[in-house]
């Protein structure tokens, strides 16, 4: 009997396939908005949801999704307000989620073993009723992520511009947060709540080593996510280890390969020059040799924030419209 004939493995593989598609799909939008760690926060909050389910005897998937959506809405609300205290408020929410979850699971009379299956995934615990919920939610996330792609892309790319085109930006932001919460719950059984964020972010980071468009990043990330999930689940069965850890380790290995290949490709095509370099100076008269910048107290360095421009054997710094280059103890105009 092969592993593909075992019913629980079939369910695990279907859940893995959908998780591998939906986590990088929503992850692409989160990374685009520079909110890579949002999935992690929602995962922490969902632990309380799971614990509530165990305590009250309801299906943990349902309580987890309710608490995760509430948490994601709270995160989005705090983020949209943009207050400096928002960062601390989010930290409190995350710690509260994980501590509350562990506490409630203790009260429910469940041990660390039960908690572990939710934190790092477990192949044997995907029940048929869980699978229906997972399939339904993952399909909904994918339909929205692809169907509303242009709108979600615009909001994540440039929120102010999106608002001036008349898009319902607050609604779309909330939609992204809710989709992330749903995906966390979908992924809970395969990668687990502590590692779900990795499946949202690592495939996207891997894809962008070799892609140049949003669409190809999206598609490549989903392909990487599915591959990592299915390979991880099969490996996890054979080696009898937690699937979440296996999936994430495989995804990270893929990232390292892609980063190396991407660096080699960029070197080959000669695109290792600073990316935001200005246009080549065609027709600009050559600068006078050795003009010392008068009264230049600022010492440029790699980290000073002035734009750096490769200039032959040295680096010029763009400073108030002038190019400055180090020359011994003073700065030259270039």
């Amino acid at each position, binding site marked *: 009997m092969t592993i593909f004939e075992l019913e629980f493995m079939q369910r695990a593989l279907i859940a893995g396939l959908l998780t591998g598609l939906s986590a990088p799909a929503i992850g692409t939008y989160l990374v685009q908005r520079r909110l*890579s760690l949002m999935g992690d926060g929602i995962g922490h909050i969902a632990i309380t949801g799971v614990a509530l389910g165990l305590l009250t005897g309801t299906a943990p998937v349902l309580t987890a999704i309710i608490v995760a959506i509430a948490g994601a809405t709270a995160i989005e609300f705090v983020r949209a307000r943009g207050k400096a205290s928002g960062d601390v408020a989010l930290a409190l929410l995350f710690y509260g989620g994980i501590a509350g979850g562990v506490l409630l699971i203790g009260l429910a009379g469940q041990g660390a073993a039960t908690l572990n299956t939710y934190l790092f995934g477990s192949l044997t615990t995907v029940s048929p009723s869980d699978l229906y919920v997972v399939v339904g939610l993952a399909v909904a996330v994918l339909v929205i992520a692809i169907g509303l792609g242009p709108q979600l892309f615009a909001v994540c790319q*440039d929120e102010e511009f999106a608002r001036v085109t008349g*898009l319902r930006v607050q609604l779309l932001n909330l939609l992204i947060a809710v989709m992330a919460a749903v995906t966390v719950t979908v992924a809970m059984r395969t990668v687990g709540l502590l590692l779900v964020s990795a499946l949202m972010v690592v495939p996207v980071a891997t894809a*962008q080593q070799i892609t140049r468009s949003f669409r190809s990043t999206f598609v490549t990330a989903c392909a990487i996510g599915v591959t990592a999930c299915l390979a991880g689940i099969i490996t996890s069965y054979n080696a009898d280890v937690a699937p979440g850890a296996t999936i994430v380790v495989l995804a990270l290995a893929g990232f390292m390969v892609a980063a190396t290949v991407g660096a080699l490709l960029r070197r080959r095509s000669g695109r290792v020059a600073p990316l*935001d370099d200005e246009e080549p100076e065609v027709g600009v008269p050559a600068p006078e040799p050795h003009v010392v910048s008068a009264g230049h107290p600022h010492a440029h360095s790699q980290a000073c924030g002035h734009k750096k421009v490769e200039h032959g054997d040295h680096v010029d710094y763009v400073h108030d419209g002038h190019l400055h280059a180090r020359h011994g103890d003073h700065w030259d105009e270039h």
Partner: protein
Amino acid sequence: MTAPKNAESDTAAKAVQVTDLSVDLGGRLVLRGVDLQIRQGEVVAVLGANGSGKSTLIKTVVGLLPAARGEVRLFGTPVPRFRAWKRVGYVPQRITAAGGVPATVYEVVSSGLLSSRRLFAPLGAARKAAIEDALRVVDMADRRKDAVAELSGGQQQRVLIARALVSDPELLILDEPTAGVDLASQQIFADAIRERVARGTTVVMVSHDLGPMDALIDRSIILRRGRIVYDGPPHASQTSAHVHHSHGASDDLGWLTS
């Protein structure tokens, strides 16, 4: 247009009407009682030192900031009720057009068409043609498949203006479009604006330094400490703009508006 005709006829010719506008940012009045009327087809430069309220004025006009007092009307409709965003093209103040994930020039420009695009609908042939046209105007057609993060600052600004032009707006609002842009890109920029102006587009542009755009301006407005201190023909304004520039540190509140 549901309002009575007589009331509309007065306002219809105005692309932007700002009445007694005050804007409060974090408890500080950044604009104080600004009145401004911009007729359709005018090309207006908004000048002033850092912190004078230029960007705040622009952001309030497009509805990104709320008015503490007074109101802004676009084409006769108060901004909170304005829905015809297709008529407005906006170029925000940006250093980069790139996000956390790579995106091509084509993808960024196509996001300018969303105000008229239905949900779950694919991009039609007319819209694809509009994108090609906008790319051609800013001379970026051969870079359409390049990632915006790999372009120079000037090229990225050109992508942002193409994104604003692609919906064929009647009112174009630009916030510091030429800041940090090389001269070659500024020239292409000015040519793109000139083409729009010839077609009757109203242009409102915030700038420190108009560069090649100078010749296009019909009217300058100078803001100082949240009030309009000059409103008239452009060339008389140039000298006074420089006076305000050198006014010193007390006017330098750039962090408020950036």
